[in-house]
């Protein structure tokens, strides 16, 4: 029986929860059982956010153990490094390169840029896709479509048990009608580039 373990992570407010819900809903439409768990509460105030997502039969627990994720979907490079121990050997990663500075960095004068994180990821992950999410959002004209750009990249990896069109169908039922076209465009951003 096929099982897929997915880990989404980033910083509160980046649209991670919606991305996770879209994958879950699409899997359900395909009759694949889904379990998931995510950070809730204080995390929304600029904290680290993650979502464990599991697709397949005979799963007991919404979380999975370290070294179990088939794919890591990281909306922020340091958060990718933080959750990297969950990626299985040979697992794939899709990572947004735009770094988000925590408030403590401004107070303590940290020089965190994100580059040190992507350099580390390049050493550790053989199948790594880096996404310039900021550039993509700028070209698409909205900071709110980062999650669709990321999902577009993820669907190219062949890890999810459905294709882009199936996810697009779910998205159309989920987002407000006036945003459907923009989100479709964002999902296909990779094809445009």
């Amino acid at each position: 029986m096929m099982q897929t373990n997915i880990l989404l992570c980033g910083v509160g407010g980046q649209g991670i929860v919606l991305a996770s819900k879209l994958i879950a809903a699409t899997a359900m439409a395909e009759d694949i059982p889904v379990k998931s768990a995510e950070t809730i509460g204080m995390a929304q105030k600029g904290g680290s956010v993650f979502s464990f997502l599991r697709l397949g039969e005979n799963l007991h627990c919404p979380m999975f153990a370290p070294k179990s994720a088939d794919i890591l979907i990281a909306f922020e490079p340091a958060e990718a490094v933080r959750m990297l121990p969950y990626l299985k050997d040979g697992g794939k990663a899709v990572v947004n390169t735009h770094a988000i500075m925590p408030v403590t960095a401004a107070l303590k004068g940290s020089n965190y840029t994100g580059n040190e994180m992507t350099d580390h990821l390049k050493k550790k992950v053989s199948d790594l896709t880096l996404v310039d999410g900021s550039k993509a959002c700028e070209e698409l004209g909205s900071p709110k479509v980062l999650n669709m750009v990321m999902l577009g990249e993820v669907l190219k990896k062949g890890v999810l048990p459905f294709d882009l069109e199936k996810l697009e169908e779910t998205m159309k039922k989920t987002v407000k009608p006036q945003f459907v076209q923009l989100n479709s465009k964002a999902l296909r951003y990779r094809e445009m580039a």
Partner: protein
Amino acid sequence: MHKEFLMGNAAIARGAIDAGLNVVSGYPGTPSTEVLETAAKNNDGSLYVEWSVNEKAALELSAGAAYCGAYSMVTMKQVGLNVASDPLMSLAYIGVKGAMIILVADDPGPISSQTEQDTRHFAAYSKLPCFDPSTVQEAYDMIQDAFEFSKKYKTPVLFRPTTRVCHGYASIEVKDKEERYINKPEGFVKDASKWVIFPRLSYNSHIHIEKRNAELTEVFSEYKKNFIISETIKDYKRGIATHGISYTYTMEALDGIDSPRIMKVSTPFPFPEALALKFLEGLDEVLCIEELDPVIEKELIYVCGKYHLNVRIYGKVTGNVTPAGENTILSVYNNIAQFMGLEEKKPENDNDAPELPIRPPVLCAGCPHRASFYAVKKAMKGVKSVFCGDIGCYTLGNAMPLDMVDTCLCMGAGVNITQGIGKIEPDTKCFAFVGDSTFFASAITGVINAVYNQADMTLIVLDNSTTAMTGHQPHPGTGRTMMGQVVDKVDITAVLKGCGVSCIETVNPLKLDEAVECVKRVSSLTGVKAIIFKSPCAVLIKPEKPLFIDSEKCRQCKKCINELGCPGIVIKDGKVTIERSLCSGCGLCSQVCPFDAIGGADDAN
């Protein structure tokens, strides 16, 4: 039946509705909040839903409804049950006519709570049956069982999920609307021998409760959600007893291991003794995998003693399982590995990873609490003072650079802690900070106590007109109810006046100079005086245009960053910059800047 993707808390609410729910009340608290919110969202008009002023009021309301034959549910987090424990203990003696669930969500970790208390103890203490689900599907099914037991035995029952069940999601089988049970309450039937608690009634009830619970340990031994897994066993001399989310960790961890016998306990009280005997039969050793306290472990030790069984019981008592915090699949794997003589797995440490930025929770950009704390800090500069905090977003005022919360204990405690400190340190200016929802929940009696007993202190009410911490629930100061009514607000100034507070001033904290002057003026008076800092929660209002920093005027002194710690002000390419996506234009930083370098959008253009 059909499938839906639901959060554990939503599944509990939906299960309750499908079981015949008529009334649900509660007080918000992570990880329980979404139960009541889901019930409200699914209210077809037949439900009465209420965010009550606190857990005690909520429990009493649900009890009253159940006296009339209603199916009711009260929701709270574990520390909420401390507040509601007075009616809980007595209600256990009185019982109910319809059915009543007391939903109490426990928080191992703790992730967002003051304590790691275990509600399974409260079940034993109050002698009420308790249900403990492991998965989202089980929570949905089990809450319906809980209503049936409550109805049958005419007693309230406790239902206690933990955070990972409350906040987990799964695609589960739920009933169609037509399959719902509809309960029609008979109404209140007067009977003083039943509803009026007196020593004689309590004595008789006590006898009845003990008899019923003895019967329930038998009944629960047959309850299908308490079970032993024996088909897949390969290790015949060892057993694992577990519960809740730890049961799922155990099943994941056992993948590929010669499985010992497993017992899952879904009703920790009354403990299913006959089932436990069956489980223990022929075993040499048992490992108990639990979160919070060793409840099952001690029950098994008791059963072994009672029946003279020679089985060694391992767990928290013996130091084999960590006494505090959450379990994980990895920690449970290692507990099992140690128990079975297998090799433990080391945590995956990425030793050559670069230093990761820490993202502690902070007050939002534009949060009026930041301005309130800063105003009091400025006004009290050089003055010996103590700042007692309370429960809510504003507990985050303790973080640097504000550093304005010296104490925090439990809901509403700050008022009388301030009073106590003032009695011992009369030369200190004592301040109590309390949010508007916490004020209504449990600070009012404290204010009366302080006023009447001649305290000398300043009460600061941080009034952002919502319950922000748990996701913006209405309270008596908001003028809204969960039934969608727009009602008269309870006025905080009028309440304080009624309590005898002599001086009450209201000021907008975002007007910094006025706020500082107000604090200086009011705190110099004697007795109990109050300042209401009134400004809406930044998350709930449409943000103003973000501010700009005039690069010619800015001398990079970083006073804005070092004094306010607003996430909207960052350093980019070595320069102080306003993060446009976060700034709500509250203007506090522009009042702090000594060089007048921060201004509105128009100034920059």
